[in-house]
């Protein structure tokens, strides 16, 4: 069984995001990039499946420019014991793809690479769309199991526990030819070891473009996008809190109740 893992490069979760002048994106100058944190759970799951000899091989796939190579190498370094293959999907024709365009590119790559089980993060923390894995599954006509926090693979089938909120858990069975999106709690992702980093430096990353994937360039990229981005804006500043002054606790509570009733109008 061949496992595919999608890796997306995103700004580090503690980045200070600034919007660029013409509101078409964020300022990337001071951004530290990392693997999307949810993808790390997918990666760890993939590595474990190969280490546990449940899967035979691991393929890391990233749709992104040359600068995404560092993230792929990070993935190779962590998964060094599973000897992953790596593919970067890149072509001028891909620029400006919307989620559906991205899904078309990725789906074509999954087919070409002969991936059985595709593991992804449940969403990417940059735009939080959570659309691509679902669309990939649909395009490939495969089952999708989302928000998975526990995964067992045996033979041709998998059993996954899905987080439903409110403490409820959904247990789903599926053939392994599926798309599984991974959530926190699935595992604890490992760091790269020093030997892993050194081996990853020498690793080859294949680059596949539209022609390699047999894609009609008219179905991807900006021209084919059905969703477009308007403008980027930061959320409004939260109004600052109010410290209630008063002689003692009783006086403060009285003032609090007054404010809740008269100003906030919640009582």
């Amino acid at each position, binding site marked *: 069984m061949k496992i595919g893992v999608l890796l997306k490069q995103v700004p580090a979760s503690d980045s200070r995001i600034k919007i660029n002048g013409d509101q078409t994106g964020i300022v990337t100058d001071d951004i530290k990039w990392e693997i999307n944190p949810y993808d790390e759970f997918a990666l760890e799951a993939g590595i474990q499946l190969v280490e546990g000899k449940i899967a035979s091989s691991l393929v890391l796939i990233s749709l992104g420019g040359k600068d995404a190579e560092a993230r792929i190498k990070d993935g190779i370094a962590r998964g060094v014991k599973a000897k992953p293959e790596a593919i970067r999907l890149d072509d001028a024709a891909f620029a400006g793809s919307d989620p559906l365009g991205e899904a078309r590119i990725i789906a074509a790559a999954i087919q070409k690479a002969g991936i059985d089980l595709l593991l992804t993060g449940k969403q990417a923390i940059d735009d939080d769309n959570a659309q691509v894995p679902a669309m990939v599954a649909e395009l490939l006509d495969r089952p999708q199991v989302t928000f998975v926090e526990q995964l067992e693979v045996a033979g041709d089938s998998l059993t996954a526990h899905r987080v439903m909120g409110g403490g409820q858990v959904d247990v789903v069975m599926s053939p392994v030819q599926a798309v599984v999106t991974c959530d926190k709690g699935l595992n604890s992702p490992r760091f790269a070891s*020093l030997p892993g980093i*050194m081996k990853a430096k020498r690793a080859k990353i294949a680059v596949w473009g539209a022609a390699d994937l047999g894609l009609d360039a008219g179905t991807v990229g900006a021209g084919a996008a059905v969703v477009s981005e308007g403008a980027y804006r930061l959320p409004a500043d939260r109004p600052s809190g109010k410290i209630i002054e008063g002689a003692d606790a009783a006086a403060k509570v009285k003032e609090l109740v007054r404010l809740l009733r008269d100003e906030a109008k919640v009582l």
Partner: protein
Amino acid sequence: MFVDTETQADLREAARQAAESILGPSVKADDESETYRKDLFAALGEAGLCGVSTSEEFGGLGLGYSEYIVVLEEIAKVSSSYAVSVAVSGLPQVILAAYGNQAQKEKWLPGLAAGELLGAFALSEPESGSDAGSLSTTAVRDGDDFVLNGTKFWITHGGYADIYVVMARTGGPGSKGVSAFLVPGDAEGLSFGKKEEKMGMRASPTVELIFEDCRVPASSMLHNEGQGMHVALSALDSGRITIAATANGLSQAALDVAAKYATERRQFRKQIIDFQGVGFMLADMAADLEAARLLVRKAAWLKDEGQSFSTIAAMAKLKATDTAMKVTTDAVQVLGGYGYTREYPVERFMRDAKVMQIVEGTNQIQRLVLARALKRKYEA
């Protein structure tokens, strides 16, 4: 060489993550209870931190000291005890790489480089510290064996190590009568005496070794008979770079805590970093650390380039460890009363820094080495 290469930056980040996740959780408790954990060392090995400069052929990373110092600095920022542990277990590795024969290398290097085996270096004795050439532990030839008798003092990893490089007297008095041996931790006739109760570096075990008719095969000898002090001193030349790097990590950790605190703590309605007395102290800490770091980088670079480096290594050890002592002491001062409590790590940093001025040649001995070099150069 002034800033990290891409590889060094990647290794730094990985070493930082490994040190924080492996050592961070128990560093305070282990200092207080004086506990060394071999499993933590093994975990550092698993992360690839224990054989940076050992060749790939023997399971190391095959990198230089320029990379090794980056890794040690990052470990030391979390725990100088474990930075010293990695550095000390590195000594048998440099010795084997330089002086071991093929069989000795094959037997010990892969395990040491992987951190599966723990190494130690046994030179000091109760009556011979700085004057190491006067050591009195003996190794007497008996058929195909050598039989060791005597006591070693202050041995880091004593009782924990799988393999000790032991300097013992096989000939007459003085340095020329000393040979180096590989002694396994479970060798018959080797036992362990007192574990020192120390001021700092308390997670690192410092233990007495007792040799009583300890028999090792003659094939355990490293290099040639009578070359033991040469083996030991050349290892210490490299070791000084590692202690200096450890000291820099400690200084950086202290500066990080102090500078952050000085921007957060307010007195007289000002951040205390805005008082010149505090701000200038932090400025000196940063400048001294940067200077020490450049010296250590130069020593490592010279070694990697195959040039003679022992004078610069002595300077690096001297400056980096004196700097660590000053920077950690000043860090306590910047934190005031809080700095003196065990709630903050700077008091531990200060206790840990002190021993760096003593081990691998006291700082007086470093000055002696430097003064002798000057004398040789300027004497008519």
